[in-house]
């Protein structure tokens, strides 16, 4: 029998994808034996714009437009990089408020990913349920920042608006309701028989492979690789507010979902701690000077490690802004995971990576 392979594309427009990406799968019957990817459909040249078109104090708002889901991590990373270049310190209230929004952002991003993973596995009702409940977290974000998606909450030297006790109370109340719903999801994802057929043992990444391909974010933590930037930085008070790393050992889609669900619970707990113990202080400190030198800042975005390298030269225009986004660094790992899987499972596997292509192509 001759071994003939056929090429089946997934994308660039596909019903299970939110954003344009093309995977070319080389299939032998149903099994994927070769993967080729094209990720550059939404390249906008943000890095060049940051060094030619905008002054350093406006770039925080430019980089937030790279991606709608992790907008806050982008602007925060950039802002912290600039604050480091200008040798400025911000008080702990600002740090706590920044962490609060960062964790709220993680919750809504993870919920989006979970809903799409459920949809790609054919469970439309779960998709509707999670997306409906996600609205709560969007409203919390609007309460805090005044906008649902593009928060523009962080500025160089502080945050843009304060939180009063009434709002804090309402946010706590709503988070408590959300927590109950999350326990409902955990039960569903753990016990639903049809979901387990689509998730368990599929799209597996072993621990050794995770090391080999430098996997990051929930993808790595589901394989048992203890990498979480929140554990490796000290510019935000994660140790004080009760951060716990969530690990799983299976490395399949189910493990990734479990890690995300556990992280949502951990994030809710952290948000509650922040709101309970929010210190007093100003929300803005004026920073003078021009950025000079070079700095590298890392943050944990919902999808993994985000890195900013910024180089300044004492003028208002920067020399270089390098953005390494989480999905970009995970593309080799993604391609590897597809090998040996069934083509029919590809959408669910892809959704479980939570890929963000507008981040990748920037």
């Amino acid at each position, binding site marked *: 029998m001759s071994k003939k392979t056929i090429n089946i594309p997934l994308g660039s427009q596909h019903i299970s994808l939110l954003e344009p990406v093309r995977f070319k799968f080389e299939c032998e019957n149903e099994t994927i034996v070769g993967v080729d990817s094209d990720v550059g459909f939404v390249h906008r040249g943000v890095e060049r714009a940051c060094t030619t078109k905008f002054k350093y104090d406006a770039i925080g*708002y*430019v980089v937030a437009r790279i991606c709608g889901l992790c907008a806050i991590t982008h602007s925060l990373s950039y802002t912290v990089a600039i604050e480091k270049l200008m040798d400025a310190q911000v008080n702990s209230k600002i740090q706590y408020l920044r962490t609060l929004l960062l964790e709220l952002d993680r919750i809504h991003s993870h919920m989006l990913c979970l809903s799409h993973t459920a949809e790609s596995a054919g469970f439309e009702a779960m998709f509707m349920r999670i997306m409906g409940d996600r609205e709560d977290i969007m409203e919390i974000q*609007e*309460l805090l920042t005044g*906008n649902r998606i593009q928060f*523009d909450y962080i*500025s160089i030297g502080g945050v843009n*608006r304060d939180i009063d006790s009434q709002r804090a109370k309402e946010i706590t109340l709503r988070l408590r309701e959300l927590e109950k719903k999350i326990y409902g999801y955990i039960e569903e994802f753990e*016990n639903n028989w049809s979901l387990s057929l689509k998730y368990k043992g599929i799209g597996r990444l072993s621990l050794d492979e995770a090391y080999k391909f430098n996997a990051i974010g929930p993808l790595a933590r589901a394989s048992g690789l203890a990498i979480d930037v929140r554990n490796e930085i000290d510019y935000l008070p994660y140790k004080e507010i009760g951060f716990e790393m969530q690990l799983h050992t299976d490395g399949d889609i189910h493990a990734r979902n479990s890690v995300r669900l556990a992280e949502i619970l951990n994030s809710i707990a952290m948000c509650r701690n922040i709101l309970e113990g929010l210190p007093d202080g100003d929300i803005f400190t004026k920073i003078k000077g021009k950025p000079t030198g070079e700095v590298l800042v890392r943050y944990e975005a919902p999808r993994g490690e985000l890195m900013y390298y910024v180089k300044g030269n004492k003028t208002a225009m920067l020399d270089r802004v390098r953005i390494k986004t989480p999905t970009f660094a995970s593309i080799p790992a993604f391609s590897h995971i597809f090998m040996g899987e069934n083509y029919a499972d590809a959408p669910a596997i892809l959704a479980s990576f939570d890929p963000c292509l507008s981040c990748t192509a920037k």
Partner: protein
Amino acid sequence: MLRSLYLALKNLFSKPQTIDYPLTPIPKDKEYRGLIEYSEEDCIYCLKCEKACPPGAILFAPTPNPSENEKNKKGLEYNYNPYLCIYCGECVRACPKPEEALWQSNKKQEVALKEQEVNEKWFALEKKHQAFYQAKRESKS
């Protein structure tokens, strides 16, 4: 699994989560970040907001019939493009007289129509603005 079946059945008879838009308006937070508003009488024409605006949605362009505000020595006029604005509030922070001369409201901008020629008018304004500063620089040197 039985529970999810029960929930799915229950959802058949519960109220929809969506809002009957446009018949019912979308509930909006009181402090929703909306349009920037400006009061000409209180403005001191320091042009700080223009410099602070990241997308350049505020332009002080020269006008043939300037206001009678005595601070307005160069004969400029405040122009604001709500379609370019990202509602970040940097201009209000930069303003020496916030809440008096410049403040952020919670109003939303209506959708623009083609007849209004929003872009064309704004581009013309930008050209005028550029030419004004170009001429000033040349007269200085």
